């Protein structure tokens, strides 16, 4: 069961019962059955990634690892089925394809929507009174000030997304630093 607390859950991920059901790993031909199966898979993926604070997914590699493989029942999800699942997640807004277009080899699992991240960051900035202050992106993600925050050690791509959202909302402004890593952001009230 995945938990919804802000604190990273300690301990191993608790897989749902369906995870040990061999047909779970077979694309069901019956449509209604497949719908249900897909739903459960998406939930599982998001929950697993949230639990382990994983952000990116490379299909070819992920197949051999949990959650897409259940060693105990010797079942693995097939790549094309996973691709179908990710497509579904993308449609949901919980994932986005990265890498080459149409290659669909790697994606970003957005178990928390960028908007949510953006609002989190804005909230924190509001609390610390860091409006109109230029901050580096690095500082935002890995600074001591953000320790304890959800977005601490946030994946850079995800963070970037979130900041883009803020920027589109007009609450922040990004500007390029000396290098790509030195991106700066200035939050406005």
């Amino acid at each position, binding site marked *: *069961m*995945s938990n*919804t607390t*802000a604190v990273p859950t300690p301990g191993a991920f608790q897989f*749902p019962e*369906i995870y040990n*059901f*061999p*047909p779970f*790993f*077979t694309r*069901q*031909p*019956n449509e*209604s*059955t497949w*719908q*249900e*199966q897909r*739903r*459960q898979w*998406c*939930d*599982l993926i*998001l*929950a697993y990634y*949230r639990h382990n604070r994983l952000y990116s997914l490379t299909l070819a590699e992920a197949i051999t690892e949990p959650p897409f493989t259940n060693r105990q029942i*010797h*079942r693995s999800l097939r790549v094309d089925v996973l691709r179908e699942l990710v497509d579904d997640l993308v449609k949901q807004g919980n994932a986005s394809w990265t890498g080459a277009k149409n290659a669909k080899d790697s994606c970003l699992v957005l*178990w*928390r*929507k960028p*908007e*949510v991240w953006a*609002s*989190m960051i804005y*909230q924190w900035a509001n609390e610390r009174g860091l409006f109109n202050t230029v901050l580096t992106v690095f500082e935002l993600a890995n600074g001591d000030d953000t320790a304890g925050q959800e977005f601490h050690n946030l994946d850079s791509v995800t963070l970037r997304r979130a900041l883009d959202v803020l920027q589109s909302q007009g609450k922040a402004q990004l500007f390029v630093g000396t290098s790509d890593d030195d991106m700066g952001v200035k939050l406005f009230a």
Partner: protein
Amino acid sequence: MNPVELAPTQRPLLSSSEKILCIQNKVGLYQGLERDEEHDCGTVYLTTQRLVYVDQQLPHERSLALNHQAIHRCTLHGGFLYTSAKICLYLKPKPTNGSDRDAQPAEGSGTSGYNRQKGAQGTTLLETTGTTNMYGQARPGSSAGPIEWKCNICDQINRGGIKCTLCGVPHQGNYESTDTCNVAADTRPVNASGAERQPLRCPVCTFDNHESMVRCEMCDTGLSKPDEAAADQTNAAPSESTEYQRLRTQEQANSGRDSNDAISLIKLSFRAGGASAFYATLKGAVDNSAWELIGIDSFGEHTVPPAPLQGQQQSAAVAAAGTSAAAANSPLLARERRPTTGGISTIVNTAHETQQARDVTLRSAFSDLDALTAKANEIVSMAEHIATQLNSPAASKLHRKGAAESDEDNAERVDAFRQYLLDLGIDSPVTRDTAGAVFHDELARELCDYLENYVSQCGGTVALVDAYCLYNRAREFSLVYPSDFVQACEKFEALRLPLRLREYPSGLLVLEDASSASDALVISRVGAYIASFGPITASDLAAIEDCALTLAEERLWLCERAGALCRDESVEGVRFYANAFAAAAAAAVGAGRGEGDVQDPLWQYI
């Protein structure tokens, strides 16, 4: 010889067992020693039963036939210089019954020119085809037409006939043809009434007495029957047919000799050769016909006796010479070598016997086949009878659960018997010939009859290929095309028959019992199996339900489509589980969408 019927092709019409052995053309006939002008050139057909002469000029009027049985002996005289080869046929006389005069052939047959008899003859040798009148007065000589003659006695001008119409005296002489049966010179008393009796000629006063007389009326000398007289005179001579005697009455009176002296003789003159071959064949044929004489009253009423050859006896000029010559010849001829068995005759006999044996065998063989068929029918009807008896009580026994052991045994036996019945085959299968236009309908009905039991036995569904194989095996020799089979099956619904043809999405065709088979039943059944046995594969199901593998697969797919099962594909194969997703979905719907959804407390900020 008798007139013969010809086919339009101018060949003689043969009886069923008659075969033509030899044919020779340019043959002329001789009456005794004299040429028969009317039958001078023609074709002779030698058949197994008779000798047929077909005249060349007037085939339909002048053709004659002579039965082999009437031939006593035949000899061959080779040709020399101007004379052509000749075969002499010595005819057998008819056996006398009582008196010679009585003996009349039952079927008198005369031919033109041969049937001339003296007036005394009366109704002898009738039934010629128009060549004689009912009194047996043949048209003299040629068949050109009746000849007018003047009666010596009463000066009456007569047309044709032998006897004068006024006074009844037979015509004497004045015929063109050579073979006048007459007696021309004779003036013997005429039996005007046409009595069939031949007058007895007194040896002393030459008065013709009634044949029943013992003593001459005039001179009162004893009269003896011509038979006896003849027997006295020429014992070696072959007895002649009584026709001769009748016809030669005058001669007898004249010569005072017995008619037995005269020997009937026909000669065939081969003007174009071929005599020797013909002779050999003729001998064989005559010998063969001699076999058939046994059992048949020879010369009796069965065979048409040969018309007497008036031949030499008749012509007055040669009468004595002829008879004497014939008489002289006869002892000679009598000493000739009799025909022996061997050569052609044996071969022909063997062939005949073989053919008869074959006929007998065939007949008996057919009767055996019929007997076999009849018995097979009996057996089949008996089996069906037992089947109907078994059907009602046994069916209930089978379905009863918790049956006693004896019942189970009975059920097994009933099953075995049912299997035998199925194997027994179908009597009178429907074919295109028998059914014609309604072939498919009839085929459908027959299919239903045959397969209904089997289908219900197999749980209500049978793969079409299985049904096809079973049905064709039952039909044994008149098989059905697959396309016909399928078409007939498609008619089940239209004809409201209990079976149905069903096509699954995978393409599998099955025959289903319309009443007993249903999807829900299958689903529940399979679900029960899974509940008890765990996840099952198609082969597991086939083993459980004792059905074909394709059918088991089809059933599982059916359940999956219905959402009752979900599949698990792996390297081990496809295994089917009860559908947990559906259960989970139902639970999720009931509980609202709980897990998996991002319940973010910060959501509200968006």
